[in-house]
């Protein structure tokens, strides 16, 4: 994730257009990180309903952000 964000900073520095793939990668890695924290740090492997409720937060926002980014390009 640090590599992807470093790429984003580099693109900003050179005033290049930010690749959508970089934003998608950040959001996907965020969901993956959230899953690791919920299952391992919060010990919710045995409570799948609670884990799913917590994981719904980043997934919902990632989908909403991706839809927001994609909408002007599609319509």
């Amino acid at each position: 994730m640090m590599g992807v964000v470093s790429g984003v900073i580099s693109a900003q520095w050179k005033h290049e257009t930010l690749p959508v793939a970089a934003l998608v990668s950040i959001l996907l890695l965020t969901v993956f990180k959230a899953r690791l924290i919920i299952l391992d740090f919060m010990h919710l492997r045995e409570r799948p309903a609670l884990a799913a409720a917590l994981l719904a937060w980043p997934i919902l926002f990632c989908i909403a952000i991706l839809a927001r980014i994609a909408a002007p390009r599609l319509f």
Partner: protein
Amino acid sequence: MTMAPLSQDDASDEGGDLLLWVLVFSELAAFGILLGGFLVMSVLHPESFGAAKLHLSARIAGFNTVVLLASGWQAALAARAGASAMQQRIALLVAAALGFVFVGLKFFEYSTELTYAGDDTFAAFFELYFMITGFHLAHVAFVAGLFVLVARRPERSNIVMLTTIWHVIDIVWLVMFPLIYFG
């Protein structure tokens, strides 16, 4: 039927878990409402939000993202099983220091953006921007301060709880960063 008596450690673990879930759920609910509001406003006012975003410093925000990720990594090192008290202390202090670097950089970023905040065209954007990022910044500063306190006498239960909250704050930033700066 008799039930086995709950040991004091089990009871405190259950209490700690409950407190952690309440904290995490309330954090996610609060930030969810704020970010949801921002998302709706950005759809309703795409021109002014799009123009206002050009005045934000995405480079500093990107650098801050790396700082926060590094801080989360150090916090995870402190929380790992088998770490000695000295290793925990060092990792917690590095995590706290990186948290304070985040705060310092965010204040520097604010200083470059404040001039545009008074502009009526961007009023709605900057009101939400300062509210959301300021609320997040307060969390970063507070938990970084707690890291310093816990580093004085590291106990694994406290470290795990703080590290979990720190990762939640980290995740909120990772969602906030693309939404506010690039969304």
